[in-house]
């Protein structure tokens, strides 16, 4: 069966510090991968998605970036965090049939920028 991992589970970082969140998927190959942010009281905001190694599409211009160095690894990064980057970050995967197929989410990372 497929599983998706995210770490760390929680993170407290000062403004201006760098960020690296990691997501890995097991039990499937060539998945579509996604990064979402969920701010308090707001819906899921798609940040990035990837249909293959090295292929990243950005939905929202911001100080975040994403990379996919391996088929089942997706990394969210920032060089300098802003207060507004606080939120709940979710990684998800879907089968390769199409970008809009059912998505399976990881446990999330709670980020607090102070």
């Amino acid at each position, binding site marked *: 069966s497929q599983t998706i991992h995210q770490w760390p589970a929680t993170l407290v970082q000062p403004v201006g510090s760098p960020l690296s969140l990691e997501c890995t998927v097991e039990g499937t190959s060539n998945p579509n991968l996604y990064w979402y942010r969920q701010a308090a009281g*707001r*819906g*899921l905001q*798609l940040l990035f*998605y990837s249909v293959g190694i090295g292929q990243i599409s950005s*939905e929202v211009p911001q100080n975040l970036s994403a990379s996919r160095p391996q088929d089942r690894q997706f990394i969210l990064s920032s060089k300098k965090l802003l207060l507004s980057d606080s939120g*709940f970050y*979710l990684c*998800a995967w*879907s089968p390769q049939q*199409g*970008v*809009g197929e*059912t*998505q*399976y*989410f*990881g*446990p*999330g990372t*709670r980020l607090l920028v102070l």
Partner: protein
Amino acid sequence: SQKIEQNSEALNIQEGKTATLTCNYTNYSPAYLQWYRQDPGRGPVFLLLIRENEKEKRKERLKVTFDTTLKQSLFHITASQPADSATYLCALIGSQGNLIFGKGTKLSVKP
């Protein structure tokens, strides 16, 4: 522009009653619609998918309807239980082919 609205931020019902959640959309012609459940501090979990040519889909105590004329989906939980308390999200395929989520409805089932 395309919009998804779950017009109740919160819904409180008594145990045993049927919960009905609404998802409306505009400027879409989705081929299918999905419903997810999200518990506090956790990622959403897929529940049901209904296609445009299906009027109704059932899974245990869950029922979803899809009315493409009204541009609306209804999500029902029959014989609701306190364990059903969670936030429920609807999702549609956007024009870019990505899944777009509503903001969710927080359901509270009181014993």
